């Protein structure tokens, strides 16, 4: 058992003498006896480091990770390759172990990272103002709607059904607190229905929430949707996957007011869903309503260039109940991974990666949809993810058959879209090769044939 403490018996005696106390027990005298825990906590006994390692290794071995199978599972987090230099840089104690840079003189590294990160997010989204990270993607959508509420005070939020189900549900949870209602805009042919959006708009609409690409992989016509929303004076929020943004028209150029998103794809591990980071960028007029930390450039008393946390009068530790958000600890280390990753990809690399995904995803959609029993769920343009239907078979059973072959077939859309009970959402990263796509197609073909053969005898193989 290690407590990572170093107080020896002699230390304790000397320290208690200095305090003027007889025992450590005496230091807890303010806690009434009736409230004391009169037994040890019911927890397992402590263990040596190597025993803890063995235990955690054994638990981890019971998970099937992207290391163990060929995974086409995405739906919000993606198995991109994380370059080695990220592990090296993030494990540096100077990045790993300090807290929020309250003392800028000894935090220039972290503050400059924030500044560089803000620049990169601003470039990706085409919006002038970025903060230094929020928690993650779906809660960033909720934070963006809160900004819209602060800006225009209107009560309704419209969210496309193409927005990630977790984002829509998080938005609904948070909006109930700050007093907005969330309504859904349906999809038509796999994309946000512009006519339905137009019909739902009105001067009570605070914000319209879109996603690019949508949960179904569709590259949405953000410009057209945004133009419609703007006629009703609504603030447009777009949740974006940052990798496709390398080749897609940036939301800022399409009139979007606030771009947010899940940053996991930028150099962060899957980690069973976190920690990653959320990004948050906005038009200039929202600068003083932004949530979270923002680093700014300045000079020191000697005229040397330096960076500080700035515009802190927005923040909870200064403004308390009048703050623009309650966020304090965000995701600085994950945002560092993000900016290092973007530097690693570089100007041309982000485009090359996007185009590679575009080509391989197109190949995968074509190859899979050529199979007997597979149909495209929609024909919209896609970059890295697409949806198919497997009509007439039990999708769960098909997915299980593929899992037995070491292939993770993707996300069963029926888990969150009852109207697509036979749907499968398939994602690619640069780690999925043509050979793997071909193997997937072969295995899927076999599984479908087997299921069709098995079906008359009863489903549930």
């Amino acid at each position, binding site marked *: *058992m290690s407590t990572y*403490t*170093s107080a020896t018996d002699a230390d304790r005696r000397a*320290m208690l003498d*200095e*305090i003027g*106390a007889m025992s450590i027990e005496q230091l807890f005298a*303010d806690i*009434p006896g*009736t*409230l004391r825990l009169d037994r040890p906590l019911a927890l397992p006994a*402590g*263990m040596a480091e190597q025993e803890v390692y063995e235990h*955690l290794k054994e638990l981890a071995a*019971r*998970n*099937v*990770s*992207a*290391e163990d199978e060929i995974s086409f599972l995405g739906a919000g*987090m993606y198995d991109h390759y994380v370059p080695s230099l990220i592990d090296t840089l993030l494990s540096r104690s*100077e990045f790993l172990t*300090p*807290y929020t*840079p309250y003392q800028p*003189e*000894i935090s*220039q*590294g*972290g503050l400059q990272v924030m500044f560089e990160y803000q*620049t990169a997010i601003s*470039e990706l989204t085409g919006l002038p*103002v*970025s903060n230094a990270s929020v*928690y993650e993607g779906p809660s960033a959508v909720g934070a963006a709607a809160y900004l819209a509420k602060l800006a225009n005070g209107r009560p309704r939020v419209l969210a496309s059904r193409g927005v990630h189900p977790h984002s829509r549900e*998080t938005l609904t949870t*948070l909006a*109930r*607190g700050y007093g907005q209602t969330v309504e859904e805009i349906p999809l038509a042919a796999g994309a946000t229905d512009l006519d339905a959006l137009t019909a739902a708009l009105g001067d009570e609409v605070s914000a319209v929430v879109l996603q690019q690409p949508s949960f179904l992989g569709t590259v949405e016509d953000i*410009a057209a949707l945004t133009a419609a929303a703007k006629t009703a004076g609504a603030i447009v929020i777009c949740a974006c996957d940052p990798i496709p943004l390398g080749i897609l*028209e940036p939301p800022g150029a399409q009139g979007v007011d606030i771009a947010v998103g899940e940053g996991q794809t930028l150099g962060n591990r*899957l980690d*069973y*869903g*976190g*920690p990653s980071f959320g990004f948050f960028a906005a038009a200039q007029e929202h600068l003083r309503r932004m949530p979270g930390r*923002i680093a700014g450039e*300045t000079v020191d*008393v000697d005229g040397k260039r330096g960076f500080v946390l700035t515009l802190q009068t927005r923040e909870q530790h200064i403004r308390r109940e009048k*703050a623009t958000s309650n966020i304090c*600890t965000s*995701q*600085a280390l994950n945002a560092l991974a993000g900016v*290092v990753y973007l530097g690693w*990809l570089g100007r*041309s690399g*982000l485009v*090359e990666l996007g185009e590679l995904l575009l080509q391989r995803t197109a*190949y995968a959609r074509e190859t899979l949809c050529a199979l007997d029993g597979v149909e495209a769920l929609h024909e919209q343009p896609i970059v890295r993810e697409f949806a198919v239907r497997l009509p007439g078979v039990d999708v769960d059973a098909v997915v299980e058959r593929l899992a037995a072959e070491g292939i993770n077939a993707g996300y069963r859309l029926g888990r969150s879209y009852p109207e697509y009970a036979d749907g499968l959402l398939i994602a690619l990263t640069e780690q999925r090769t043509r*050979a793997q796509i071909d193997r997937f197609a072969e295995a899927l073909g076999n599984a479908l044939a087997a299921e069709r053969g098995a079906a008359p005898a009863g489903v549930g193989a």
Partner: protein
Amino acid sequence: MSATTPHPAASAPGAGRSAIAAADDTLTIYERSQPGRHAFVAPALDVPERPLDELLPARLRRTMPAQLPEVSEPELVRHYHRLSKRNFDLDTGFYPLGSCTMKHNPKLHERVAALPGNARLHPLQDVKRAQGALELMWNLQESLGEIAGLPHVSLQPSAGSHGELAGVLLTRAYHEDRGEHRTKVLTPDTAHGTNPATVTMAGYEVVKVGTNADGGVDVDDLRAKADEQVACLMLTNPSTLGLFDPNIAEIAEIVHGVGATLYYDGANLNAIMGITRPGDMGFDIVHFNLHKSFTQPHGGGGPGAGPIAVSERIEPYLPRPQVVRREDDEAGFAFDLDEDRPKSIGKLRGFQGNYGVFVRSYAYIRSLGAEGLREASEVAVLNANYLLALLKRAGVAEYLPVAYDRVCMHEFVLSGAPMKRELGIRTLDLAKRLLDFGVHPPTVYFPLLVDEALLIEPTETETKETLDRFAEIVATILREAAEDPEIARNAPYSTPVRRLDEAAAAKRPVIRQPL
């Protein structure tokens, strides 16, 4: 940074270098960019290439690439390596930042979090193939529930402030389910800023409760303000003054008497693990800061995690999904994610929470066990009281008196008001001068009700020698200020940059690199 008294004239390690070299230290990655350089090599295109226009209409495509830097891998590594050296960190030295619990971050935790079964596990993996992760989460839930003395835990919130928001939204759901519509939430004037900010985001009005002469909640003021419109009292105990409120049972009675919930801000849990439990004190909802008491590295401002533990009456409203253990014929039991929670407040974020943080905190709890956690809290309180005793000695106490002269818990508050009056240096100046001695300053100017406050939390992982040295440094700075206050007023001298113009940064914000 030097261990002996740094002379104010002695300047940065870089002072002897040329101006060119010094300026080079602050170049951004964008300023190091040269057209044509790159680190990334794309995997080969192994599928038949099709024209872009066929795949993605030109009007949807970007016409100009994002202006990311163009740098080689060696430059990229050197740049961020160099930036890292411009940070002070916990592995370098003492970091007594009050209310932040800057305790040692065990290195084992990075190793286990990086195991591929954790690091490359997709959050939507079928639960059948994520049993190890779910068991870990379930075990962590059980452990946190036991530590809090509350039976039900959700790991979902991403940080303390997110846990607070969860707690207030749970309160709202609880009251609404009973047909009650309440409008106010009480917070003490000593509260963390996140508390009142959370209350506003959750749609309530903040009502402040005063502090009594002993540093506890002013019970009469609480009684006067507690009415049927009050939804919740948010409390930190020990408070941000580092004091345990002995009236907690009476406070709980008043709050419950008007049908409100009692919320525990777990930022200060490090004082009481295994000694007393929020649930036993009468709290309904607790949040934990896994990046404080449970050793998740602070990362320069995250990631953290802010799980919550709640009482039976709040359980139905917990966020979705919940990790549950079900009976199973084959394995005895199996773990699952339960989405079917009709009264739930819903999701607070995507997926299951900051799992990588859970791995580290679980490893910590398994390393220490019941006995170790209690010892950690005992030594945290011993260290704080010892440092307080040292700072009560002549030469310090007359300038930096303790704000409330009682036995403290894991942290304590000094007031720099006499120092400012007698020596002409402010708390800020003392903090900046500490930087020259290789120490991270305490939290300053918080809590707000103490003039020129210094909130000092040494944690249990510091040695007696470190505390002795810190007390000596403070005494040295005060002696120095008595002779020449200008030294502290102009500090620091040995840091990569000196005092920065924050006013100019806020007035004309430059928050991105012009490209």
